[in-house]
């Protein structure tokens, strides 16, 4: 009996070790042939460059010469699950808010920001019956925004503190996804929302609120969405990373020059009404940009804020977050 028990336990330990060995990171710095790439993105007009490039087949076309034959993508409601997927190795390239990248880097994500996607572009929308003249009017209100660790949560809390409002005690901030927040303000379950476009345009179009503060008024040219590549891709396939940046620049410039077509592409991929998307473009303060140098200070500031909020252990440096070489090579080419 004792012998049997020992054998069973040994078999269990061996199975567990074999199973765990399969879970370990196999990266060892050697260059391996890469034929498939996985992208992550969110259904926000902030990240329209990704969708334009996907719709026009530019990812496949531009990456085929590097041996990439399969491109897949995953749509995420917010940045946090997208970064969790990247930490787990499920995606190689992410269009994502800068703030989730920071908390993921703090948790051990092996990746770098290689380009900017967009700055500003979120609105604080309040219910029609609420009068807003200054941040003081927000005291006592319930505000829905993205969950802890996201750009919107980080920016909102920092802006409230800078205006003498305690985000933990003077207002009631509820973290949730964009769909839940839109329903909540529509039904009067919250007094305000702070969301990235096009959600504010949807809410306003339905008569459930008006824009009180644009995020660019909270912090001019604040970093929002960025382009992130995994450390494995950067180390082992720098040529592919450089091409990804070039394709991103191409798609961004095309979106800026062809906004109506970009709106149509977004509508086709995300089921948001075309009129709402066009209204969003007309009213938002967001700008699609590509140069990561624009947002370095803003992102490093985010690490200070997130450290103060207890989201990360300590502030980070630009070198820990960015790799600017790919953008520099892409624009020099």
């Amino acid at each position, binding site marked *: 009996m004792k012998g049997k028990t020992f054998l069973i336990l040994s078999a269990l330990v061996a199975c567990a070790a074999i199973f765990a060995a399969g879970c370990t990171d196999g990266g060892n710095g050697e260059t391996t042939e890469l034929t498939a790439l996985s992208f992550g993105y969110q259904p926000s007009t902030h990240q329209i460059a990704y969708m334009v490039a996907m719709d026009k087949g530019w990812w496949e076309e531009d990456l085929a010469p590097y041996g990439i034959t399969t491109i897949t993508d995953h749509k995420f409601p917010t940045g946090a699950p997208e970064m969790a997927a990247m930490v787990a190795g499920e995606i190689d390239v992410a269009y994502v808010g800068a703030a989730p990248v920071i908390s993921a880097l703090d*948790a051990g994500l092996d990746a770098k920001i290689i380009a900017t996607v967009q700055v500003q572009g979120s609105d604080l929308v309040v219910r029609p019956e609420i009068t807003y003249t200054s941040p003081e009017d927000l005291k006592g209100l319930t505000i829905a925004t993205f969950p802890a*660790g996201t750009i919107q949560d980080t920016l909102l809390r920092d802006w409230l503190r800078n205006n003498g409002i305690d985000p933990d005690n003077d207002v009631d901030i509820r*973290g*949730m996804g964009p769909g839940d927040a839109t329903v*909540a303000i529509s039904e009067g379950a919250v007094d305000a929302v702070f969301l990235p476009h096009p959600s504010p345009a949807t809410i306003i179009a339905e008569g459930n609120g008006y824009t009180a503060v644009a995020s660019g008024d909270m912090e001019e040219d604040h970093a929002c969405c960025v382009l992130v590549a995994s450390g494995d891709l950067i180390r082992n396939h720098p040529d592919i990373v450089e091409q990804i940046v070039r394709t991103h620049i191409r798609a961004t410039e095309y979106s800026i020059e062809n906004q109506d077509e970009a709106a149509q592409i977004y509508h086709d991929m995300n089921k948001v009404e075309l009129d709402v998307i066009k209204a969003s473009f007309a009213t938002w303060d967001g700008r699609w940009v590509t140069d990561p140098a624009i947002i370095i200070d803003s992102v490093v500031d985010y690490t200070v804020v997130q450290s103060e909020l207890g989201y990360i252990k300590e502030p980070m440096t630009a070198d820990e977050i960015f790799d600017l070489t790919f953008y520099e090579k892409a624009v020099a080419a």
Partner: protein
Amino acid sequence: MTADMDNKTKNQLRRILIPVASVLAVILLWQAIAVYIIDNPFALPSFTQVLDAFYRNLFGPRGTLAKDIVISLYHFAIGLSAALFVGIPAGIAMGWFRTVDQALNPLVEILRPIPPLAWIPFAIIWFGLTHGSAGFIIFIGAVFPILVNTYTGFRNVPKVFIEAGKVLGCTSSLGQIKNIAFPSAIPEITAGIRISMGVGWMCLVGAEIFGAGTGRFGLGKNLWTYYNLHQMDSVVVYMLVLGFIGIVLDIIFRHYVTKQTVRWQGQEM
């Protein structure tokens, strides 16, 4: 006598030592795999990291674990109470009255498979972001096991009991339900409540992730918050606390409710 006492002591020791040894073995294995094989706290935080996170979440300046437990138990109480209030009478009505069964059965069978999370938009629309909203999601998960088991208990009442009751003068439906069918159905009803408690507790994360209740406290709420912040050691703490409280609730129910009701039923019969 001495041999009997020795055996009894050995059995008591085995009942304690085997589970304890099993848990210790799993903890050692977990720690070894996390530290020496995986070595990635995101993929698998070690037992010691989880212990440290538990201490921080309970006693640290930003720790909210105690308050999270209280709020979650409150949401659970709301959901389970509503499930009992709706499920038992509905199960009785469907189990006793054929017409009610025929009318409600299709509705129950359509609604039952709908996942509790699918009801989140309506939870917000109907109840706002209140504690009731979180309780509603738990109610959706908990009501159907109670309803179905109550229904089954009533459908399975032996006809001979009803006939005997009629002979002894219990001729009204209400009297038969109260004095014959309900006592007979108690084992199924209590089994249904026990299943409901488990299912309702499992719905807690879904019930709290959309900002219902306080929006800041709750085991489900802050499990998801720590996930959003990629602090997986705290995620594991909250998972284990959820599991532990689930066991405690089940033990309390099994030993204090089931035993009482079955004992009472045994005395009556």
